[in-house]
Every structure is written in C-alpha cells, then in structure tokens.
C-alpha cells in the first residue's frame, strides 16, 4: 500500500487531477504504441493477403530431345520460389506429354481433387491418384473418381529448342497454374 500522495487530490484549474491526467495520457500513449506495433506484426504475418504475382516465372525443363513424341515423361525442376533451407522440397515434378512436333501438354503433379501426386501408367494411358482414386486420361481430362476437373496444365513455350514452363505455386482449384 503506497501512502496517499497529497497532490493527487489537488485539482488543476480545469478540474482534472494530475493523476487522472497521467492515467489518460498513459492509456493514450499505449494505444498509439500498440497500433504502431500491430501494423508491422499483422503486416508481417498476413503478408499473403497482398497479391504476389512474382511467384510465377519461366522455368527451363530441358532440351526437346528429352521428350520423345507421343510419350509422357516425368520432368523435375527447381522451384523458382525458393529459400536456401528448402532442401528437397523445392524439387517439383511434373508430367510432360509431347504430342507431335512442338505441341506439348505439361501437367502439374497434383491431383485436382486434393493435391496428391498422380502417377502415369503408360500401358493403360491413365493418370491415377493414390489418395482417393481419381483417374485422368492421357490428355489430362477427368476419367473417374472425385476430382472436379482435369489435371492442371502449365503454360509452356519453346525457346532455343528447350521446353519452358511457367510455374512456382501450388496449383489449387481457385488458383490453377
């Protein structure tokens, strides 16, 4: 228990005690400080709500001769959105289907149902998903099972007889590749 301080009861001309003024000042000061602190913290944690289009960029998948016509092959690339401590997680696979000449279809590995890795079966020309049994035809269209659409397709281009795709994010239904 602190002894009652005499000045606490002394009124200023405006009728406000010094203690009351200090308390109000303290609350106000802390409100300002809390706001100033919250802005960077919230901005830091919720930075995802700012659109980041830079996450997509062109990635080289390899020379054209690596992809024979009428075949579907697995290709992998190092994800452009990467940090030094990503380890193996930044190695992203995708399925490259070369039709003829410079006509390609590059599919994301992720099933359109819930993102599990689909596997290509060259004998039956089907992609099958191990999680909930989704299946896709060789052109990526939906064959059976729960997936709501066909496989996600990468945008691709051919430059200097190499195949490039535009990637960097995990494809989802609301934001495909």
């Amino acid at each position: 228990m602190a002894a009652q301080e005499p000045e606490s009861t002394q009124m200023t001309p405006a009728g406000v005690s010094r203690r009351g003024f200090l308390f109000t000042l303290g609350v106000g000061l802390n409100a300002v400080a809390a706001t100033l602190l919250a802005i960077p913290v919230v901005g830091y944690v919720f930075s995802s709500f700012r659109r980041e289009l830079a996450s997509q960029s062109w990635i080289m998948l390899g020379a054209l001769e690596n992809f024979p016509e009428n075949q579907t092959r697995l290709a992998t690339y190092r994800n452009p959105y990467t940090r030094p401590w990503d380890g193996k997680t930044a190695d992203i696979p995708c399925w490259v289907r070369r039709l003829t000449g410079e006509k390609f279809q590059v599919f994301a590995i992720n099933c359109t149902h819930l993102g599990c890795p689909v596997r290509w079966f060259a004998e039956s020309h089907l992609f099958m998903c191990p999680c909930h049994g989704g299946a896709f035809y060789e052109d990526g269209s939906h064959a059976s099972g729960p997936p709501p659409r066909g496989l996600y397709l990468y945008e691709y281009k051919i430059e200097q007889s190499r195949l490039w795709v535009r990637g960097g994010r995990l494809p989802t239904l609301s934001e495909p590749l």
Partner: protein
Amino acid sequence: MLRKIALWIDERLRASELFASTAGHTVPASAGSWFYVFGSGTLFCFVLQIVTGICLAFVYVPSADEAYTSLEYLNYQQPLGWYLRALHYWGSNFMVGIMAIHMAQVFLFGAFKYPRELTWISGCVLLLLTLGMAFTGQIMRFDQDAYWGLGIGASIMGRTPFIGPNLVHLLLAGPIIAGETLSRFFTLHVFVIPGLLIALISLHLRLVLTKGINDYPVPGRKVRKETYAEEYQSLLKKEGVPFYPKAIDKDIVFVGVVILGILFCAAYFGPKGPQGVPDPTQIHAVPAPDFFFLWIYAALALLPPYMETFLLLSAPVVGIALLFALPFLSNTGEKSARRRPIAVLGVILVFLTLGTLTQMGTYAPWSPEMEAWSGNPTPAHYIQGRSPLELQGALVLQNKQCRNCHSLGGEGGLRGPALDGVATRLTREQLIRQVIQGGGNMPAYGKNLAPQEVTALVAFMETLRPVDVRAAHDSTK
C-alpha cells in the same frame, strides 16, 4: 529443520492456502466417480506432451532441409531418442482419445447445462486446439505424408471462394510447400497453440472452481435456473468433500494407468516414421494421415463430388457452431442420460460414424493399388486349361492395370468390383461395352485398347465364373 524452511517459505508464498482453495475445494461426494477421471487424464497427457516435446526440441531441427535427418538421428543415434519420439507420438494418441471420451462423458452427464455453459465452450476450444496440435504435429514429422498432407490442407483451403489463394499462401507461408512452411508449422506447434492451450486450460479449470464440478446426474432432478445454485450449495453442505484428498483417488489411479499405457505403447510399438524423405519428386508416395484424421480422409473419398466443396467448407463451420451453441440449445432440464435418449443416440451415431470412417480409412478401398498390376499373381486356376486367346486376355488384364482397381483371387485394388465371377453378372456384350465406354466410376478404355486386345480381354473375363454357376445371358436371345 526442513519443516521450518517449508513453513518459512509458505508464510511468504501462501502456497498451502492456494492449495486448500483449489485442489482442496469442495465437491459433491458423487463426483468422486470413475466417470469423472477423463478430464484429469487429458490434462496429464498434455503435461507429458510438454515434457517430451521439450526433450525433442533439444535435438529436432525445424528446417525443411534438415528436419528429416534430425528425425533419423533421433531414431538411430541419439540415446533414447526413439523412445522420446514414441512417447510424444503415443502421448498424442492417448490425449486425443481420452479427450474424446471426456467430451462424450460430459455431454452424456449434461454437464454443459446451466451454469457451466462457458466450461463447455472453453472445452470445445480446447478440442479444436488439440486437433490443431495433432495436425501440426504430423507436419513436424517432416516426411512424405507430411508433405502431401500439407498439399491436401492447401487444396481444401484453395476451394474457399474469393480468398482461397490468400489462405493457401497463409497456410503454406508462401505460394508452395517449402522451407518457410515447416517454420510456420513449427511456430504454431511449439509456441502459438501450446500457449493458447495453457491459457484455455487455466480458464477451463478456473470455471470448474467457480461453477463447481457437475453433480452426478440423477434421473428426475432437473436443472432450473432459479433454484440450481441453491440446490448445488445444499448438496455441497450435505455431502460435500474436499477434492483433495477425498475425491482425487480415482483420478490418480487413472492417470497412473494412462502414463503406464503410454510408456508401454511407446516401448512396444515404437515411434512413427519418418516415412520417406519429403522429396516431391518421389512420386510413388501413397500419403495417408495419422489415426485421428483417417475419418476425414475417408469422408473426402466418399462425398459425392457435386456437394464436396460445399460440405468441405460448410460442415466444419456448422459443426463447430453447433458445438458452441449446444449449452444454449439445451440449457436446463434433465441431465441424466437415462432421460435423454436422443443425446445417447447422438453420441452412438457420432462414434459409429467416426469409427466406421476411420476403419475404412485404414485400408482405403477407394484408392487404386498402384503396384497390383505388376506385383499380384494371376490365380493358377484362372489360367489352367485356357485357350491362347483367353491367356492373351489374362495378360491384357494384367498389363493394362485393371488389377489396380479390380481384385482377382482376393488380391488387387478394391476401387472397382472384384472380377472373380464377373461372367455371372455381365454378358459378353455388356463386358465389351463396359471396357470400351467405362462408366460407373470406370474410365473408358476404348482409345487405349486395340480391338484384338478387347476381344482377348473379354474372352478371358467370360471364363471368370464358378463352374457350377451359369454365365450371365441375354434372355431375349
């Protein structure tokens, strides 16, 4: 001398006073029941999780690059590392399990009714936080299951209208699963959620002290807002006992059994995983979640696609809202399960549903068996004495991955019907149509089979019937 020191400390700390007013608070003698042990059981699991979790954090490296190596190190190099990992894993299983029993008991005993609404609601928040710990903990075991589990979480989030992509980004701490994702989940698992858990547990226990533990329900003794407080006080006066030392005995016994159970399971079954380096290019992964989320995994396979997104996004919201609203929907009246048949049926229904889905999740009949076509043998009696065409068909059936979804002789996928005896169900024409056009969850093979392959395949399938059962036939012919 020791007593003197203890008294000296107590005079300053007043610990014995605090102890008498908390652990020694008065409870109805009827609350010293075996049904009332599950709350303290859950609490001690949490304490054990903190202890083993801190031990693991001494060694574990929360980096996408090195987490897996550090888990392997814990398993094989760090003395007793495997056992601490096993304790933490089994502790989580026990915690979720006992918490579920605690919740069912509290519901069946009407303990959520007036005046313990807030106790129930804080318990619901604890349930969600504990499940949050279970999910983030599964990610700490940074293996292929963790990697694709994150993908599944992101794919669900990605279905949210308007802000889906932002939520995915927020969950993964980036546009894709990478180094920062694990850091984010580590922070949640080790700082954020445990902090919230401790705060909510304090609130939960505080409410048990202020509003009293639920009196053992008696059929016919109804809760009335006007009289309940008075009745409870007179009950305490009549047959009240201090929780410590009079009503705590069964809790102590149960906690001991639980800890021994965890110690035993950890020693006998060992730690879980890690199962495979989290390298997405290892596309032969067959991801499956931990035990407590198997029912969600099953539900996701069985929901009709047209209502899937709607249910995925609305069911959790509705379910949680219902849980929170429960004490207000049924605020007074009968507490005893003997007079609340719908409540009893509800609990049975929930446990049956979760149990069935979990059980189905353990063998996932909806998933193709990816190696069945190359790995499973054709039963000998299906090939003996067959014509060359039929044998060719048996090869087609094998080589075209039919067995990934269809079993033969009990081996193969369960996605489609077993093909043993298919000739008794489908005629030759029906078989041809089914193979070429697909349908009923089967892809169309028309483009992927040469006509002679279809002929051979159907010829083989026509032989698939018991000798004493007639083949399916078209009665118009």
